[in-house]
């Protein structure tokens, strides 16, 4: 799922990726950066969540996972 700078720059709330079995969050970020070069620079600033939980770059994704790209948060 895409929010804030990602949502607005890509004009999408969601995108789909097909990745090999055993792919990690790092792999998804690389694929994402290749497909959407105009937001690539924001990826290194961002965290990733699966469902409602933050996960690390080595987290192995499963086909049913809903992944969110979380740019630097600014609540409060």
């Amino acid at each position: 799922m895409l929010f804030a700078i990602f949502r607005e720059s890509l004009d999408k709330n969601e995108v789909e990726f097909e990745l090999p079995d055993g792919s990690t969050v790092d792999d998804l970020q690389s694929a994402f950066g290749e497909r959407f070069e105009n937001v690539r620079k924001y990826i290194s600033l961002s965290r990733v969540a699966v469902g409602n939980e933050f996960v690390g770059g080595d987290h192995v994704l499963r086909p049913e996972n809903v992944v969110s790209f979380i740019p630097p948060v600014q609540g409060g």
Partner: protein
Amino acid sequence: MNSVILTTDPLDVNSTVAMVSSPFAGAIDVFIGTVRNSDEGREVSALYYEAHAEMAKSQLSKILQETKREFDVIHQVVAHRLGLLKVGEPSTIIAVASAHRAEAFSACRQIIERLKVDVPIWKKEHFKDADPEWLGV
């Protein structure tokens, strides 16, 4: 009781405080985040808040569970407004009631500090003399 509110409606301090009031409470600390008219020297006209609402509520609930474990709090509520806010309007209200004041201050402070780190809410600044910008990127 822990309560988490995300809403596009204006926040109200009295009704937020009423949610944590208790005959067992001797102290309530309330933090109110408000929209400032400037940021790093640039004139701000409005702020737009966007959230990953489901995850934000989940993270805020976890934060309140943590403060409840760590401090002797009675009731706590965190409310965050979303959408377009004008200068001066409250964006966040956190209220914590406890028997004694030290716990209320500490828990309230911890909630806002944790909110600023781990809750997926984003802010787009609208300036008087420039295009709007997402903060932090």
